[in-house]
């Protein structure tokens, strides 16, 4: 048994669990600052808020920066500090460039002469907050929060607050898609379960064929169908149903249409397998005892199919939360979900700490939904018999 499981366990551990843990660790990892500024981060621990640090702290910064001068590490440090204080990149690179060759008599005066930022206690306060081996900076940023120079957690200014809205939007769209999939998928699965085997096979084919097509192709196809001069609008105008084309794509409508289409098979297949297992004699028994068809449905059929609904809804919801390509193609800028920004911070902005923090909260969101759903439906029901 164990030997049979071994390949998949090893595979999951090394290629799935371990990379996820390592990547999540980046959300709190801050080693680059103490490594780049070893003397400064040690010296600054002594300093108390409110006034400028004493000469030894300035001297430590001068020798740290002198060691980094001319290396790419200086630029990386500058970029990292710039996340915390916009504009600090320039201060650090300029200071590194203009640093005197030997230790000046007063390092404090020398640094302040290069850039007035070094005479700002608030800047030193942020530097000290960022000097630990781990940081809550990325996790706070992912929730639109930051620490003010005194160290207490405050909201970022409204102009830059983006991620809380994004999580809300991701949740709204995913729940909407899940509900639509239930509403559309349930009747289809019920019809399939009642149909003759031959008809059921044809229906199954109809559901599976789009499943074999690439996600990218299906999303792009929706753009072509739904655009202003697309097939749908042209047909509706030709029929006289509308005068001006409807806005069906590059907005929330387009995202719902395309995402429901992509995710519908994940809803129908588990539902179908559960419905197939329900013996028709249960329904006949209820009917023969005098229940109306509506009552049969609500007291017998629906409760028996709930495990299928729960399994399908979980699959659809969890996939929807992480969707990225489809909203990027058929949505407008107001419809992008959190996945879009995780990709942006990973690839373009190269801010992997923030990308990991966003991913960590996404994981929490999925886990929380799963637990809530489990409580509502009952976990034991999620087991397909």
């Amino acid at each position, binding site marked *: 048994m164990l030997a049979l499981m071994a390949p998949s366990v090893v595979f999951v551990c090394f290629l799935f669990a371990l990379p996820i843990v390592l990547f999540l660790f980046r959300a709190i990892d801050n080693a680059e600052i103490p490594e780049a500024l070893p003397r400064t981060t040690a010296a600054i621990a002594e300093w108390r808020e409110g006034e400028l640090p004493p000469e030894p702290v300035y001297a430590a910064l001068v020798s740290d920066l002198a060691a980094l001068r001319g290396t790419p590490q200086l*630029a990386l440090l500058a970029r990292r500090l710039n*996340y915390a204080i916009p504009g600090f990149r320039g201060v650090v*690179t300029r200071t590194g460039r203009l640093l005197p060759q030997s230790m000046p008599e007063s390092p404090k005066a020398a640094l302040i002469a290069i850039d007035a930022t070094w005479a700002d206690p608030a800047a030193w306060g942020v530097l000290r907050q960022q000097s630990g081996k781990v940081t809550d900076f990325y996790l706070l940023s992912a929730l639109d929060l930051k620490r003010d120079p005194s160290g207490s957690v405050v909201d970022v200014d409204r102009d830059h607050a983006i991620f809380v809205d994004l999580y809300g939007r991701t949740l709204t769209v995913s729940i909407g898609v899940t509900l639509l999939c239930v509403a559309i998928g349930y009747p289809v699965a019920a019809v399939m379960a009642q149909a003759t085997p031959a008809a059921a096979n044809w229906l199954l084919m109809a559901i599976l064929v789009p499943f074999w097509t690439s996600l990218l192709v299906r999303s792009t196809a929706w753009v072509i169908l739904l*655009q202003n001069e697309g097939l749908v609008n042209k047909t509706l105008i030709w029929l006289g149903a509308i005068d001006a084309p409807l806005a069906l794509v590059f907005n929330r409508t387009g995202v719902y249409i395309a995402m429901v289409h992509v995710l519908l098979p994940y809803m129908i297949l588990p539902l179908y397998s559960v419905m197939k297992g329900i013996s028709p004699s249960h329904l006949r028994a209820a009917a023969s005892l005098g229940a109306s068809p509506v009552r049969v449905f609500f007291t017998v059929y629906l409760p028996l199919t709930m495990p299928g609904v729960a399994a399908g809804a979980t699959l659809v919801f969890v996939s929807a939360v992480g969707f990225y390509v489809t909203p990027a193609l058929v949505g407008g800028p107001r419809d992008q979900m959190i996945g879009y920004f995780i990709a942006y911070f990973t*690839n373009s902005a190269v801010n992997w700490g923030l990308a990991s923090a966003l991913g960590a909260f996404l994981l929490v969101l999925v886990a929380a939904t799963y637990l809530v759903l489990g409580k509502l439906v009952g976990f034991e029901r999620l087991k397909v018999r």
Partner: protein
Amino acid sequence: MFRKPAVGIALAVAFMGAAAQAQQTVTIVNQGGAPAEAQRVAVFEPFSRETGIRVVVDTYNQELARLRSQIETKNLIWDVVSLNPINEAAGCEEGLLEKIDWKSMVDPRPFAAVGGFGECGAPYLISPGVMVYDADRISADRAPKSWTDFWDVAKFPGKRGLLYQPDQMLEVALIADGVLPPDVPKALTAPGGVDRAFRKLAEIKPHVRWWRSGDESMQLIMTGEVEMGYGWQGRVNAANAANKRNLKIVWPAGYVNAIIYLGVMKGTPRKADAIKLIQYNLAANTLARYAEIMGLPPANADTYPLLSESKRADLPGQYLDRGMMQGGQLYINFWLDNGDAIRQRFATFVAQ
């Protein structure tokens, strides 16, 4: 018995060596699409014929992360990288690109107008971002003439297409707010400059369809989804050529010039060949061939006399003073310092 195979192996190794010599390759990465196809025909193919060095082309979307991961894993795939001005500066500082003294290899004078060589990269192309409309839908007398017209939805009703990205859009907003294009870097970096640009963008925001790819920008105009829009000249040329359309660029309104650089990947063993390819690409006659296909302004001023009359007419020759250069220490440092914060603010601004 022992000798013959040994001789055979030695010969085989020698031949393989020779074959490897003849099959030298350089891998270049750019943003793909019509500009990359033009570069292949006008630059890489003749280069390979003349030098015997094969050129492999890959595409990326200006993600510096992909350079960094190749360098950190010591698994270099690319040798030559096409870069926008901000990435040229950032990649150079962060040690992703080789520092190269281009001045000692190429005459710098014809490149002065675009700001000369970078510490790492050499400029080869200008990509103007312009105001464009469909002349088949809007007659010349009713056409917009300035960014002020573009912002005037009462006089020119309809949607507007703008790029979903703050760099280029803040600059356009400032031009619409009355800043002369050459003064845009100063106005943007001045205290309150960013707020001013955002205020101007807020005026037109309810009427904007934001686009994210060059294809989308032209699609919006050609299908009439937007009345007029911001677009890149290369895409306008390609759309006109491929679809026989009559899209018109409003040069006098003012435009944004993105300078495109070529740089050498840090630590590549093919550095000499990479430099050879870039030098070839910068030459006036190479860039003339390229401009004949793509119709984009070359960074090398010596190219202009070599162009045909019709191509020169396509270029913003007489409106050079209406172009804003995305370059210079002040401008580049401003974006490196504030880019992350501004991009975040922009995403929030658009979503509200």
